[in-house]
């Protein structure tokens, strides 16, 4: 449109576009830590500052992509909320009055408190490490100290998923297994908004959608992944187990089950003793050597269940030579799930999913599993030595995460999901869910937890977080009372594999089971968004006894940022950021293995700290030396390791096995097992900061029974044995707990817990209404309330990030439009969200894609005024809110005892059992969230907050 009054301008006249500018002057690889997914990144530097972070195209986890948080890492690196120097509390707890001190004084202070604790009763140290990716070090340190009171955040994250899987299939979802993204034709995902493996899931969904495979998402909320699902099932929270059991009912009813898979790879044909009331009831029939037996239909006699080519019975009631009666596991399973209570019509109302839809889903799944099999022309040899010419797959895959695990019925729901996979024969086959090395592991993996005894100045031998096989492995005293402060591995949470960080402060406050002296925490925001009932947590942290001393005498906190928990510590040990330190994604902890093979990774420092801060792991190693922990000092008492990289390279947990599996041996040629290699870290750096062993094709599937895989896994130190791992439909360890509850065995639960153990240690998956919901009036609190982490902040330590907070600055309460309209609630209204224990105020957003009986919000957006170097008028503090305020830490007391609001099997925090009522605020109540505790005071000498950011970090 030429303008007649002005001369036309030449297009782009004189613009200079520099197209050949190098990104920076250096680039370093490392591992991201903006969430827990451990993607490989390339950090471009300019003048020693971060210029640009991109995904590492060679990295097996993210293959070059990067998520919304990963790129924003630059703003976390240069956040003004970074702590500057060690701090000593000089005012009352919570007042925020601190003095900067030297590292030497800080270490002296910590050592003094800890030395006294260790010399008297080491259990008085509770060491809990939150979002810790160095648990192979921190757990080892705690055991060396001699306290059983150690865990990271798994107990309030997804221990149900881990326990449900490890006690059933020797693996699980997330770090334990993944969908066969290249072959799956049908995927059902339960309860995943955003979760571990975020980039791999996204990469995989992109592939699956591109191939035209069907993706079904079962989730009360239609955001994120559910938004791109081909079918969204807006289930009621906490009922996923019922839906899964109804699918099993349908598969059994229509005889669409993979019986060959069941007899070869599961304990379906193992015989179970039927002797109601007897001490052996429900245990497997075993021979003199302890081998489980099946009923041989040809010989008409019991036989070793592992006998090649034997024809076992899967139904029938058999009399054993010794006169006892026994039935196969399959029969017990079929009898249960064919029961009328699991028929689609019986569960439809409760789940909010019509019966016809459940029947149709089951038929679709069965069609893909049995009529659309995948055959790979790949010979392999099974654990019994038989060669197979092909690998036949059932291309139906499942994935699940916190949405089903963060309920008090989550353990059984997770187990039910694995039973469904087994019925379909869809475990580690082409197109199904697959194990990630080093999984599968024996079921359960390894021995029980250490910590039955503790003594002054004495290390505890073994792993503090391990796998009970039965009541004998519990950490309880003669009276059955817990030995751990969090009560994990007690009768209250027998399979508390990841500990129960959510109970520590509450138990310490009640001095139940005993008082503690020092609470030592790392990267865990327990005075805010990581706690159930944070205001009560704060009350306990500041509680003084009659003599004026604190209920918890010493609190040490290590963190890189001014989080809400900082003001409640007596001593602050400021950590570096993830771009400033060495780290180890250890094969001994949660490595980066995939279905293609085992792997692990490191972080290397890519920028130098510009503050008086130290990597937490270095600090811990020095504390270990100062305290004289045997593994941390040489014979002459001098420090054994000078820092974390020295430890990573040279520590050996068992001969030849250390934190990293790659490039072991003096010349770096050994994998998994080999003497320490002084150049190991350099070799990792040369390879992009990761190591991966690619499995040969014949080891790619059926790993639980793949002879070559099992032998190699053992040789590489990933397993202590190479026997076939038989998947456990019927769980004998659970039955052993149940037998104890019935009065059998030496270790007996307290009488008040007998009924609970008997009910919840069913050896086959069960469904029950979430416990907190059973205990209250459903009509008074008619809505389920759950949270999700947004993709741009999932598992992110530091949502004060200047870019990410522009995307999510204040969370709303999302509510079904129809439900809201019935209550006269409109878009943007302020409402009270009230549970049986309290109320919180927030602002409503209406939506269509949510179960009508469910409200939800983004988690961990709401911040306490003053924290994180955000101004007190920030939307996070003014309008952001936490549902944590209305989530109880306790179930209602029964007979004077109260149990944690947790899964009774694993102790998993039951965040998503919450029921609420939503009511409109009066006009005068609007505009600010409540509770709205006092504004926190920043530590001394925190950096000034800029009014405008022009260049990141300048």
């Amino acid at each position: 449109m030429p303008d007649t009054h002005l001369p036309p301008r030449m297009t782009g006249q004189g613009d200079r576009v520099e197209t050949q500018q190098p990104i920076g002057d250096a680039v370093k690889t490392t591992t991201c830590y903006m969430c827990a997914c451990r993607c490989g990144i390339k950090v471009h530097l300019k003048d020693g500052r971060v210029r640009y972070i991109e995904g590492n195209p060679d990295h097996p986890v993210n293959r070059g992509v990067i998520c919304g948080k990963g790129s924003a890492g630059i703003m976390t690196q240069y956040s003004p909320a970074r702590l500057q120097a060690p701090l000593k509390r000089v005012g009352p707890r919570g007042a925020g009055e601190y003095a900067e001190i030297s590292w030497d004084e800080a270490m002296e202070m910590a050592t003094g408190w800890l030395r006294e604790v260790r010399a008297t009763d080491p259990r008085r140290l509770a060491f809990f490490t939150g979002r810790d990716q160095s648990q192979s070090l921190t757990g080892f340190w705690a055991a060396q100290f001699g306290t059983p009171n150690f865990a990271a955040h798994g107990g309030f994250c997804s221990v149900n998923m881990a326990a449900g899987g490890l006690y059933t299939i020797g693996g699980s979802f997330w770090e334990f297994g993944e969908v066969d993204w290249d072959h799956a034709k049908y995927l059902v995902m339960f309860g995943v908004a955003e979760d571990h493996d975020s980039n791999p899931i996204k990469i995989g969904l992109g592939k699956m959608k591109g191939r035209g495979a069907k993706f079904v998402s079962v989730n009360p909320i239609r955001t994120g992944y559910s938004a791109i699902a081909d079918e969204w099932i807006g289930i009621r929270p906490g009922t996923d187990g019922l839906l899964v059991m109804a699918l099993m009912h349908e598969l059994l009813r229509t005889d669409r089950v993979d019986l060959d898979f069941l007899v070869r790879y599961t304990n379906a044909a193992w015989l179970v003793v039927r002797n109601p009331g007897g001490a052996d009831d429900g245990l497997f029939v075993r021979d003199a050597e302890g081998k489980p037996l099946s009923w041989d239909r040809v010989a008409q006699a019991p036989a070793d269940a592992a006998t090649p080519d034997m024809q076992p019975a899967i139904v029938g009631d058999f009399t054993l030579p010794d006169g006892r009666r026994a039935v196969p596991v399959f029969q017990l399973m079929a009898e249960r799930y064919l029961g009328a209570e699991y028929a689609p019509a019986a569960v439809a109302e409760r789940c909010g999913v019509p019966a016809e839809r459940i029947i149709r889903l089951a038929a679709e799944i069965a069609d893909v599993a049995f009529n659309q099999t995948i055959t790979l022309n790949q010979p392999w040899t099974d654990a019994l030595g038989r060669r197979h010419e092909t690998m036949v797959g059932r291309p139906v895959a499942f994935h699940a995460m916190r949405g089903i695990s963060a309920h008090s019925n989550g353990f059984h729901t997770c187990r039910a999901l694995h039973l469904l996979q087994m019925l379909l024969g869809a475990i580690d086959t082409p197109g199904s869910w697959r194990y990630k090395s080093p999984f599968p592991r024996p079921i359960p993996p390894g021995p029980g937890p250490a910590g039955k005894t503790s003594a002054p100045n004495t290390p505890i031998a073994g792993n503090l977080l391990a796998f009970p096989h039965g009541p004998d492995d519990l950490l309880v005293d003669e009276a059955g009372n817990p030995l751990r402060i969090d009560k994990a591995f007690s009768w209250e949470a027998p399979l508390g594999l990841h500990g129960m960080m959510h109970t520590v402060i509450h138990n310490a406050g009640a001095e139940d089971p005993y008082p503690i002296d020092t609470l030592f925490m790392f990267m865990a925001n327990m005075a805010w968004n990581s706690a159930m009932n944070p205001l009560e947590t704060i009350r306990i942290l500041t509680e003084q006894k009659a003599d004026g001393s604190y209920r918890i005498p010493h609190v040490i906190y290590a963190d890189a940022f001014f989080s809400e928990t900082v003001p409640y510590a007596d001593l602050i040990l400021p950590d570096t950021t993830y771009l400033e330190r060495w780290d180890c994604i250890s094969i001994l902890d949660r490595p980066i293995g995939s279905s293609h093979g085992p792997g692990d990774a490191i972080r290397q420092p890519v920028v130098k700290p510009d503050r008086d801060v130290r990597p937490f792991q270095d600090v811990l190693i020095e504390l270990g030396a100062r305290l004289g922990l045997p593994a941390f000092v040489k014979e002459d008492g001098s420090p054994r390791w000078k820092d974390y990289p020295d430890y990573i390279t040279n520590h050996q947990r068992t001969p030849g096995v250390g934190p990293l599996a790659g490039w072991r041996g003096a010349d770096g040629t050994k994998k998994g097992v080999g003497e320490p290699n002084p150049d190991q870290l350099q070799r990792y750096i040369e390879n992009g900061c990761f190591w991966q062993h690619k499995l040969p094709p014949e080891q790619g599937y059926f790993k639980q029974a793949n002879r070559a895989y099992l032998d190699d896994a053992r040789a590489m130190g990933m397993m202590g044995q190479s026997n076939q791992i038989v998947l456990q439909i019927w769980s004998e360890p659970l039955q052993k707990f149940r037998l104890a509850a019935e009065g059998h065995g030496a270790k007996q639960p307290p009488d008040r817990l007998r009924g609970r153990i008997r009910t919840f240690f069913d050896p086959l998956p069960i469904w029950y209404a979430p416990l907190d919901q059973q205990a209250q009036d459903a009509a008074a609190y008619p809505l389920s309330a759950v949270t999700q982490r947004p993709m741009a902040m999932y598992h992110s330590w530091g949502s004060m990030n200047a870019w990410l907070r522009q995307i999510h600055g204040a969370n709303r309460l999302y509510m079904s439009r129809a439900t809201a309209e019935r209550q006269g609630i409109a878009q943007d209204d302020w409402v009270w969200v009230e549970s049986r224990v309290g109320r919180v105020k927030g602002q409503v957003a209406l939506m269509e894609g949510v179960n009508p009986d469910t409200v939800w919000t983004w988690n961990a957006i709401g911040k306490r005024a003053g924290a994180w170097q955000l101004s007190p008028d920030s939307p996070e503090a003014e309008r952001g809110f936490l549902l944590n305020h209305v989530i109880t830490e306790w179930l209602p007391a029964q007979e004077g005892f109260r149990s944690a609001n947790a899964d009774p099997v694993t102790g998993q925090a039951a965040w998503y059992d919450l029921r609420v009522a939503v009511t409109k605020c009066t006009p005068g109540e609007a505009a600010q969230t409540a509770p709205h505790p006092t504004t926190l005071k920043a530590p001394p000498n925190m950096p000034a907050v800029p009014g405008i950011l022009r260049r990141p970090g300048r």
Partner: protein
Amino acid sequence: MTELPPPSAKKLGLVIDLDTCVGCQACATNCKEWNAGGHAAPLPDFQPYSAGAEGVWFNRVHSYEAGEGEAGRTVHFPRSCLHCETPDCVTVCPTGASYKRAEDGIVLVNAEACIGCGLCAWACAYGARELDEDAGVMKKCTLCVDRITNETIPAPQRQPACVIACPVSARHFGDLGDPESDVSKLVAARGGYDLMPEMGYRPVNKYLPPRERPAPNPNPPAEAQPSAAEIRNPLLRWLDRALSR
């Protein structure tokens, strides 16, 4: 007031797949990070740590719902400059600062000539212009003009930052003027469409619509027909099943 060059044969642009975009913001923050230090730098953030935080972003992702209840959809919609073939944002520019490159059709702003008058932002129907109030200069997506031919970057990464970041591969970059290019074929195969074609700007970027949802399996496998005895006791079906360990 500013003339467009003759239409170029090469039309560089993006193809964005609304079927797979999960709304993760990966493209938005990688764009922000690249460009905060790139050709159009800085991309300032105002009040970054208090109320009213707001910055310059070349790519923003919005989420919408369409339809009611379970029958509806949630759609994530990334929004950035579409590098239109006949963009009013260029022709309205009084100084010649806003321009469309003759060689490949990328729409850029010459910061030295821009007076920050904001006319282009009024003209752009897509809201793709971002005013840097600090410098008084209008900014926008450059299609990572400083990446896509940059020989200091490995060849596979010579793509816009939003494209290399995208975990679900919902973003594609290429020459939409070449009917044989991968992006053109993708647009043809998936029914890629212009955003608001009625405006007449002829956007180069295309959006791929969400795929039709697959119908429920029309041929579910036939159910086994149990005998009367088996209906009474379903376990009988498996009593004599010959299975081999």
